[in-house]
């Protein structure tokens, strides 16, 4: 009975029971409800099947990631030793502050408050922490290292207020320590966080984006040996980051290997002190602008570096504490300029005109080219003018304006007669083009104009000017044709180590090694070997020996060398020698050569560059059987005999005292 119709003639009383039977309409509607129920359950089943059966592995992994934390167990970096096994760089245990971003409070204000607090305690800027968090956003399983080597007070504070720092964790770490303070800073380099470029370049070697790697010096050069392999451990944590298991090591850490250098700490220390001494001598002598220098001490037999000093210097430990104020001289251009660039290793990275220390090169090249008979004489006059030229710029003076005598080569080297070598320079200029440029060729045979292959980064190759170099270097605007012409004056100046010529102290030491060892060009090196510590410190297990590479014969005539050696010996021993006053009474026979090179220097506060004398001394000893070559340069230090030679003497003193040849220090 359709109810709608009955209503019209017989309105129903709502209180009356409506008799009921299952109408087809209700049956349809119940059927629809049933279909809806079936559809809903079908959807639930399908979804459940997809999650639990088809994707179970994926979610199993996610569930495991939720609770398993991988902890880094830092491996100590290998120590760096001197040639006698004394520690140059070691490690001290420290504490690092780590942050697990996943365990931070979920709400941003609470999170910010905690990070701000952490920033206050650790002294790491909030923006730096946030940047590290952003950088590591893709990896929830590795903690962020907020700070290495925090102070015990900071450790205590964080440990006592652990509840205020959810997600912050203290972990064992190792810090580089430098028992000798600033000693050998330029050689050692420092360790710092890997940069993005380094990470991209060295990814294959297994570096992690959070690693610390050697950033300069041997720390960088031998990083792969020094760095250990970090271990890892796992523990499970609950949703609030509380450990629910003990720490289970998964991979053991492997400490880094020991690097042994060829450096002798005593000689190195003496060299660094000698630089200060040389600078103070220059100051006493009126050379007020003297403010830096470098000393290279090398074994001429195999090229091993005994000392490599550069002044001014710095303490590598500033890279451990990372105090911005102390780092500024090393990183900020303005502060660095004020402090005369302490980060620069002047021994290998700076080119100086060599001045008279270069004269042996000229002498050897001239003898080899047969334009010089060593024992026939040339006039050592106060001035030399290029024949046929009258211009003021073509007249060159001798450092000693009162001398006027005929001398042979040893004497010319001993008293460092400039005009003698000017004549040789002019003779080189007059050579027919078919002869090439023998002076420059011999210079490059002696290792000039190219890096030496020393196992340190940042070596400068220097410059040996040739007519070809002049043509290409001065090509185009603003230069004119006259700039591209090789004038006789250039050859004349090159003969005494002036002009455009630039050499590093290391190159100079290498050349004097050629003189000392009888004509072999050695490759300087600073790393002796890589060792694995054994129980017995005197018998370490050597993993890899770097040592000396076979020298390259320069082909120089031994008899010509003999004459140069004689000249250098006279330079330190004869009455006319330029450094006889310094070395004449030294019990070990030292041979060497002073140099006083003019270089334009622009000092802070002065509008124009001023020409300053670079004080040089290079030499070796013992004369008959040389075991050490020393090259010293004092920037703006005046005459070579004034600053550089006494500085070099200090190095010889330390070296031979060490060797037991001297019983006491000669001077102090």
């Amino acid at each position, binding site marked *: 009975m359709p*109810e*709608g119709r*009955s*209503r019209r003639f*017989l*309105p*129903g*009383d*709502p*209180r*009356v*029971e*409506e*008799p*009921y*039977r*299952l*109408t087809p*309409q*209700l*049956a349809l*509607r*119940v059927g*629809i*409800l*049933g279909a*809806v*129920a*079936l559809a*809903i*359950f079908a*959807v*639930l*089943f399908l*979804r*459940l*099947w997809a*999650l*639990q*059966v088809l*994707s*179970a592995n*994926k*979610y*199993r992994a*996610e*569930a*495991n990631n*939720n*609770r398993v934390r991988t902890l880094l167990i830092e491996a100590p970096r290998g120590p760096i030793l001197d040639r006698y096994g004394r520690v140059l760089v070691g490690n001290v245990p420290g504490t690092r502050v780590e942050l697990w971003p996943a365990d931070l409070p*979920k709400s941003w204000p609470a999170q910010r408050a905690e990070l701000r607090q952490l920033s206050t305690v650790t002294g790491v800027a909030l923006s730096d922490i946030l940047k590290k968090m952003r950088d590591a956003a893709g990896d929830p399983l590795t903690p962020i290292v907020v700070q290495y080597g925090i102070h015990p007070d900071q450790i205590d504070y964080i440990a006592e207020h652990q509840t205020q720092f959810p997600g912050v964790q203290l972990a064992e770490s190792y810090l580089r320590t430098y028992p000798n303070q600033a000693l050998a800073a330029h050689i050692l380099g420092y360790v710092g966080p890997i940069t993005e470029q380094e990470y991209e370049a060295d990814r294959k070697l297994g570096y992690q984006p959070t690693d610390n790697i050697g950033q300069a010096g041997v720390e960088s050069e031998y990083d792969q040996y020094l760095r250990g392999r970090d271990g890892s451990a796992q523990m*499970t*944590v*609950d*949703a*609030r980051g509380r450990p*629910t298991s003990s720490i289970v090591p998964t991979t053991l850490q492997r400490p880094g290997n020991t690097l042994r250098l060829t450096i002798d700490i005593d000689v190195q220390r003496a060299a660094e002190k000698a630089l200060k001494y040389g600078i103070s001598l220059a100051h006493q002598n009126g050379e007020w602008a003297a403010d830096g220098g470098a000393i290279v001490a090398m074994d001429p037999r195999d090229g091993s570096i005994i000392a490599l000093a550069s002044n001014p210097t710095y303490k590598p430990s500033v890279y451990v504490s990372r105090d911005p104020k102390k780092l500024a001289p090393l990183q900020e251009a303005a502060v660095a300029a004020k402090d005369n660039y302490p980060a620069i290793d002047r021994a290998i990275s700076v080119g100086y005109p060599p001045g008279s220390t270069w004269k042996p090169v000229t002498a050897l090249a001239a003898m080899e080219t047969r334009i010089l008979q060593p024992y026939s004489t040339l006039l050592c006059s106060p001035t030399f003018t290029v024949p046929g030229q009258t211009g003021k710029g073509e007249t060159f003076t001798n450092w000693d304006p009162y001398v006027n005598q005929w001398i042979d080569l040893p004497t010319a080297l001993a008293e460092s007669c400039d005009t003698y070598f000017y004549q040789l320079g002019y003779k080189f200029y007059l050579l027919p083009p078919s002869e090439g440029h023998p002076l420059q060729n011999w210079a490059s045979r002696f290792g000039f104009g190219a890096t030496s292959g020393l196992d340190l980064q940042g070596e400068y190759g220097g410059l040996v000017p040739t007519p070809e170099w002049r043509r290409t270097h001065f090509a185009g605007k603003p230069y004119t044709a006259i700039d591209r012409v090789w004038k006789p004056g250039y050859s004349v100046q090159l003969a005494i180590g002036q002009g455009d010529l630039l050499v590093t102290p290391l190159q100079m030491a290498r050349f004097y090694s050629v003189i000392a060892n009888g004509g072999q060009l050695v490759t300087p090196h600073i790393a002796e070997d890589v060792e694995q510590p054994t129980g017995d410190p005197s018998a370490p297990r050597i993993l890899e020996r770097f040592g000396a590479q076979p020298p390259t014969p320069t082909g120089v005539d031994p008899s010509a060398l003999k004459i140069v050696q004689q000249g250098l010996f006279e330079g330190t021993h004869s009455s006319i020698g330029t450094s006889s006053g310094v070395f004449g009474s030294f019990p070990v026979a030292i041979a060497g050569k002073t140099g006083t090179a003019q270089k334009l220097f622009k000092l802070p506060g002065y509008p124009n560059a001023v020409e300053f004398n670079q004080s040089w001394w290079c030499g070796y000893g013992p004369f008959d059987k040389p075991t050490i070559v020393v090259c010293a340069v004092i920037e703006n230090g005046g005459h070579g005999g004034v600053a550089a030679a006494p500085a070099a003497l200090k190095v010889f003193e330390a070296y031979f005292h060490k060797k037991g040849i001297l019983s006491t220090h000669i001077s102090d």
Partner: protein
Amino acid sequence: MTIEAVDTRARGLRPRRETDTVGVVGFARRIDWLLLGAVVAIVAYGLRAIDGITKHNVGGSLAGRQALYAGVGAVLLVVATLIDPAFYRRVKSVIYGGTLGVMALVLVASAATHGSHRWINLGFFQFQPSEFGKVFFTLFIAGFLADRAKRIDDASVPLAAVALGFVPIVLVFAEPDVGTALVYSAALLAVLFTIGVRWLHLGVIAAVGLLGVLAVLWWLPAAGVNVLKPYQAQRLTGFTHPSSDPRGATYNVEQSIIAVGDGGLRGRGVGGSTQVKLDYLPANDTDFAFSSLAEERGFVGAAFLLLLYLFVVWRGLKIVTGAADLYSAAVAGGLVFAFLFQIYVNVGMAIGLAPITGIPLPLVSVGGSSMITNLLAVGILQSIRVRGGRRR
């Protein structure tokens, strides 16, 4: 079968009930033992699951207390089975008024727990009126409509029912308990549907409801009017993109899905369910009880529970078809659909198919009010079944 009362003057003429004559044995025979068996199975399985979920808790397993609630619920089930549904119809105004009154009381006086006002603390029991309200609401709306069944095609009747139903829905919504408000709405819609409201009217109501949801969730916030608190809106819409904010609003869903997936085919067992044990899964014994069960017992266990639910729904729908009168049919339809709706929303929430609304999993989730209410509803269904027609 029964006398058709066609005359208004034939007052008091009531269909003779079978129960008047069948006695205890017949009564017992007419109980839907299959339904009861399925419900007992769900409760038992649920208790076992709750025991596994909560045995690692600091306070120990909650299964004992939950069993106690189930016992209370069983008593109510028996009582409800004995009560003639016609009784509810007679006292529907009292039911309605009482329900509204208690709900208002909740809003005004109850202590704040979890930032919402859902409970009345009776000391031994956190009484949650909105749970019981589900059943009373259905009883009342069905009664109201059944009284006006003849005029059901008149738009004013369903409209009046919707208006009456809207009051408790708004009260529950204001507690705030969006999920339960949705269950009420589902029950209202199911009663309207079962009782025979015209398709057109149903369509209009559904469309208006849909527009309302859209307005509350998207349009009004866009216009600057926030009906929901931001966290509520995020929960309701977040399930459509669960990975969007793993640390924030969708964290729960993310962890729940991981828990379910982690269960795999056979489950990780009570000891190996790390999502549950290590507290990654929030509310693992209440709102996300299904996820916990799925992690511990796997697809096998979860599907077993779902099949039991499906069986209950099927038996329930059968009771609708066999009801003695339209009122009973509508009550049964409303209860069954509300049951189905809760299952869908709770399980769907756990596996990322439905919004996070905090609806308990019927007969499983820890919570006395929900357990007792659902058993009460089963009792009412049994009562309808017992007094129903002889058809099958």
